[in-house]
């Protein structure tokens, strides 16, 4: 779960990290009043769950409360990166001497955490990693022993003398945030050396491990502040993984890898997937029915491809679920069904006997993709025919 900057910073503050005075604003007027409190000049920062704000116009330096109000209004009206904006952070301006970069994250290939400090900060730290790798010092961190003082000395050793002490005091606190919040990413870009000699985070990117939310109730509660798509919310409630895409061939499959592969074969057949939907393992008839309802709630869908390989999931259960769903859902588009694996023959027999005209059986994954794409072109309203 990706947190908003202000949420990350609130966690930072709990761990004793100094930050510029700031206020969250949910209206342009609130943004103006906050800027007034900070003496008129302030940074207005869009709160979204993606990066790239600096380059994308998501951070505006306002020279007056009116400018802050105007900047916030623009953000609320335009959104950012295709996402709705419901709040901005108005932050008091600080006197920056120089900027650096610090991050703690997972090193998947080593199966451990890694701490990194770059002597060059700013937006293009990935470019720095490519062109000037020596600017970034990294150390693996074993949570069984923690981030040690010698590691901090190494991580800060290439920074200018005046920035070392402040960074050395900040890093252990960022590590505390990582572990105490079950985060998989704590990134500070930029980390600023101020004219008064202190080193503070000007940004906070915190990603919390979804698998740990059950033991992080306070962090999990932040979820309510994020925008939700109603269809997605309904799918998640039923334990389905659903992602809306831009195409016209609805997809239902079991297992993330197989569903991804199904999107690929539909694309290779010349179609465009309308969604990703994983019913998971051991799907019940009820879950199949809900899946179909969710996929068909997208008005762009012209045909559906159901691709089930039964391991724990049983073919006859899938077949009954589909038939049951068709009783409940008003669907007039073709549903191409490909079943294999556990009890697939039984499932195919049930579908054949039901002889529902909307169900189109297919014997292989590729045949199913071809049929679904072909049928999507012959739309019920004739527009796409």
């Amino acid at each position, binding site marked *: 779960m*990706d947190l908003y900057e202000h949420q990350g910073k609130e966690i930072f503050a709990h761990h004793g990290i100094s930050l510029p005075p700031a206020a969250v604003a949910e209206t342009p007027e609130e943004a103006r009043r906050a800027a007034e409190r900070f003496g008129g000049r302030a940074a207005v920062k869009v709160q979204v*769950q*993606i*990066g*790239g704000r600096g380059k994308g116009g998501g951070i505006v330096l306002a020279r007056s409360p009116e400018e802050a109000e105007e900047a916030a209004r623009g953000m609320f009206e335009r959104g950012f*990166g295709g996402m709705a904006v419901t709040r901005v952070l108005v932050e008091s301006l600080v006197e920056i001497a120089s900027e650096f970069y610090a*991050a703690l*994250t*997972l*090193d*998947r*290939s080593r*199966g*451990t*955490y*890694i701490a*990194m400090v770059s002597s060059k900060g700013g937006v293009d*730290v*990935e470019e720095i*990693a490519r062109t000037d790798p020596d600017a*970034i010092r*990294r150390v693996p961190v074993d*949570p*069984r022993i923690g981030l040690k003082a010698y590691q901090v000395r190494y991580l800060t050793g290439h920074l200018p003398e005046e920035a070392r002490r402040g960074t050395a005091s900040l890093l252990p606190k960022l590590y505390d945030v990582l*572990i105490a919040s*079950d985060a*998989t*990413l704590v*990134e500070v*870009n930029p980390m600023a050396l101020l004219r008064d000699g202190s080193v503070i985070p000007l940004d906070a*990117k915190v*990603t919390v*491990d979804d*698998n*740990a939310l059950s*033991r992080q109730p306070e962090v999990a509660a932040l979820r309510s502040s994020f925008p939700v798509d109603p269809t997605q919310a309904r799918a998640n409630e039923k334990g389905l993984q659903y992602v809306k*895409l831009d195409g016209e061939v609805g997809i239902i*499959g079991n*297992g*993330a*890898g*197989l569903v*991804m*592969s199904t*999107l*690929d074969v*539909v694309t*290779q057949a010349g179609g465009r*997937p309308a969604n*990703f939907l994983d019913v998971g*393992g051991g799907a019940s008839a009820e879950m199949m029915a809900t899946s179909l309802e969710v996929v068909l709630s997208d008005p762009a869908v012209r045909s559906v491809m159901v691709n089930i*390989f*039964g*391991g724990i999931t049983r073919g006859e259960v899938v077949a009954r679920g589909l038939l049951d769903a068709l009783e409940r859902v008003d669907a007039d588009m073709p549903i191409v069904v490909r079943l*294999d*694996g*556990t009890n697939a023959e039984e499932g195919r027999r049930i579908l054949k006997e039901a002889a529902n005209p909307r169900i189109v059986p297919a014997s*292989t*994954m*590729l045949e199913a993709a071809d049929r679904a794409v072909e049928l999507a072109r012959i739309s019920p309203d004739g527009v796409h025919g």
Partner: protein
Amino acid sequence: MSILIDETTRLLVQGITGKEGAFHTLRNRAYGTNVVAGVTPGKGGQDVDGIPVYETVAEAVDATGADTSLIFVPARFAADALYEAAGSGLELLVLVTEGIPVLDMVSAVGYLRGTSSVLLGGNCPGLISPGKANVGIIPGEICMRGSVGLISRSGTLTYQIVHELTQRGIGQSTCVGMGGDPVHGIGFVDALRRFEADPETESVVVIGEIGGSDEEQAAAFISQEMTKPVVAYVAGLSAPAGKRMGHAGAIVTGSSGTARAKVDAFEAAGVRVGRNPTEVAALVAA
């Protein structure tokens, strides 16, 4: 031969009395796996269809000589189950449990490096050496004994590709599902090294997907150390680019994590890449 498990494997199941644990234990036994014991705290002295249940792994190992553990315990107990199994010197730990916090896995994987135990998973379907032993939830009936080794990050996609191989009459030495979690046990490189050394394995199929850099590392290993032919598949070529929070992930891996980048890495290493599961089987047959 085969890798990691065979007809001599003596299997213990941690969490044997749970619904899933009991179901798959009996399926594994019906396949021919030698299931010697189960462990569930509080249920020592009971049995699951004749398989004795013990309070602790240590007691189970003492009594039965188990050498491999299959783990079905709930996520919050998973790391403890690993520590307990490693403490009793079990050689292979197969962790099926999903939803384990990353911090728990980082600690456990770090700890296991200092022991003789090898971990597969978590969040994995397990592994099967067809005709010899099945440890986990892979449906045995779709497999066939033969000489193709298979290692995969996915579950059902693995079944699909195994099914396509079997339908063409191509059997498998061992099929390994490493699971999709970011921090895990045996990975592509470890499995490839074992397949390269296994006399029964003549070629290998590697099944990857978007995210991380496991495939890029596999490609580098293949070009440097593999003599056996390898066919790869990467799911997610048409997946939309995910939203990204920060830069740290890209800096650590040096990879974009896209399916395209992974396919390119495999092809640069001389690995043939199928565009879909059917093409993968065709390439293996070629």
